[in-house]
C-alpha cells in the first residue's frame, strides 16, 4: 500500500510521521518527495547509496541549418528563446522542455540535449529502503524528479511511505497522484488548521481516502481536532507534544528506533493506518 503523508503547513511533522512509520513496519520503502528541502535521509543515514542524475531536455540550434525565421522564438510560451545577432540563444532555466520549438522548426535546425536538474539517491537503513529526490539549487521545478521517483516504486514491499512537500501546489499533487491513502498531519495552531483545510480540499478533489494524525498535542482545546470533528474526518492518532520527542527529532534521531515508548506508539499508529487502508480498499476497490 502506498501512503502519502502531507500537511499543507510546513513543520507539522510529515517527516517525523513518515520516517517513524516506515521504521516500525517489517519492511518498507520511504520516498522523500520534498525535493527542495529533503530531510528523511538525515534521519535514516542510508548506506549503500546508488545515485542517478535526473535531467530534462533543452533545445540547441545547428547554426548551419538555422535561417533566423524566429518561428521558435514566437512559439515559445515561456520566452526561453531569443534571436540576437543572427544567433539563437536558449535560456535553460526558463525552458519547460515542452519540445515545441524542436518539433515546429521548419528547417529542422533544433535538437535537444540533456540538462541535469537534480538527482535521485537510493539507499538502505535496516528494514527501510530510502529513495530521496534532490533538486539542484537554482532549478525551478521539482516535478520531473518526483515523477521519476514515483515511477520507480518497487511493488513488492508491503508499505511505501511518501513524504510530501509542504503546501498544495503542483509538486504536492504530483506526489499524491498514485497514493492509495493520504495521512494529513496537523498541528494544534490557527495557522495549522488554515493550511489543513487546504490539503483537505486537495485530497477530496483527488478522491483519496484520508485520515489525520494530530501532532504536537497539548492540553486544552485543539483547533485541528475540532476541525476534524466538524468535517467528519477520521483522526488516526494523536502524538503528544513532548520535549523528549522534540529533542530526538531535532537531533535527527528516529524516535521509534531510540525509545521503546515511541516504538510502541508508532507501531499502534501503523496498525490503525493499516486497518483503515484495508477497509478503504474493500469499500473502494
Amino acid at each position, binding site marked *: 500500500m502506498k501512503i502519502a503523508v502531507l500537511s499543507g503547513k510546513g513543520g507539522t511533522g510529515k517527516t517525523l510521521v513518515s520516517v517513524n512509520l516506515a521504521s516500525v513496519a517489517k519492511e518498507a520503502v520511504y520516498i522523500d518527495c520534498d525535493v527542495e528541502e529533503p530531510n528523511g535521509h538525515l534521519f535514516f543515514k542510508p548506506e549503500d547509496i546508488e545515485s542517478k542524475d535526473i535531467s530534462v531536455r533543452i533545445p540547441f540550434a545547428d547554426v548551419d541549418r538555422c535561417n533566423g525565421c524566429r518561428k521558435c522564438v514566437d512559439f515559445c510560451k515561456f*520566452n*526561453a528563446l*531569443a*534571436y540576437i545577432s543572427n544567433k539563437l*540563444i536558449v*535560456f535553460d*532555466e*526558463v525552458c519547460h522542455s515542452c519540445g515545441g520549438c524542436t518539433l515546429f522548426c521548419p528547417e529542422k535546425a533544433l535538437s535537444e540535449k540533456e540538462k541535469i536538474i537534480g538527482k535521485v539517491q537510493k539507499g538502505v537503513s535496516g528494514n527501510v529502503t530510502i529513495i530521496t529526490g534532490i533538486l539542484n539549487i537554482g532549478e525551478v521545478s521539482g516535478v520531473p524528479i518526483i515523477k521519476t521517483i514515483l515511477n520507480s516504486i518497487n511493488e513488492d514491499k508491503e508499505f511505501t511511505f511518501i513524504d510530501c512537500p509542504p503546501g498544495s501546489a503542483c509538486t504536492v499533487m504530483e506526489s499524491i497522484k498514485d497514493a492509495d491513502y493520504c495521512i494529513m498531519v496537523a498541528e494544534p495552531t490557527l495557522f495549522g488548521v488554515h493550511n489543513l483545510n487546504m490539503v483537505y480540499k486537495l485530497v477530496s478533489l483527488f478522491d483519496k481516502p484520508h485520515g489525520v494524525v494530530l501532532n504536537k498535542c497539548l492540553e486544552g482545546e485543539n483547533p485541528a481536532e475540532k476541525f476534524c470533528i466538524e468535517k467528519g474526518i477520521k483522526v488516526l492518532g494523536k502524538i503528544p507534544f513532548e520535549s523528549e520527542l522534540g529533542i530526538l527529532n531535532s537531533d535527527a534521531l528516529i524516535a521509534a528506533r531510540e525509545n521503546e515508548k515511541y516504538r510502541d506508539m508508532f507501531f499502534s499508529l501503523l496498525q490503525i493506518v493499516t486497518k483503515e487502508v484495508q477497509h478503504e480498499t474493500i469499500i473502494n476497490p
Partner: protein
Amino acid sequence: MKIAIPVDDKSMETSVCQSFGRTPYFLIYDTESKESLFIDNSAAASQGGAGIKAAQTIVDNNVSALLTPRCGENAADVIKAADIKIYKTFNDSIMDNINALNDGKLSLLVDIHAGFHGHGGN
C-alpha cells in the same frame, strides 16, 4: 545614437521604471535628432522569461545603449550578445539621465542580478 529606457508612462515627464523586464513601456530616444518614440512592452504580461522577451524587443529596435536601474542576467545576456551597452540610471528623471549620458557622466551597470528563472520579477 538610439537609446532605450524603461518608463512608467508614455511621456517624457514620467519616471524611469524600476523594473526592466516588466516595465509597461520603453522610450526609444535618438540623442542626435532628439526624437522620441514610446513602445509597449509585450513582455510585461508574460508568465516567465519577461527579461528575455523585453531584451529581444530592445534589440529589434536597433538601439546602441540601454539606460536602466536594474537588469537581470538573462536579459543582460541577450543585450550583451547584441553589443548593446547597459548604463545604470541614477535617478527617476528621464531627461536627467539622458543629459548625464551625453555628458559622459553615466556609469555602466555592473551588478547584474541573478535571473528569476522565468517565474518571478520585482
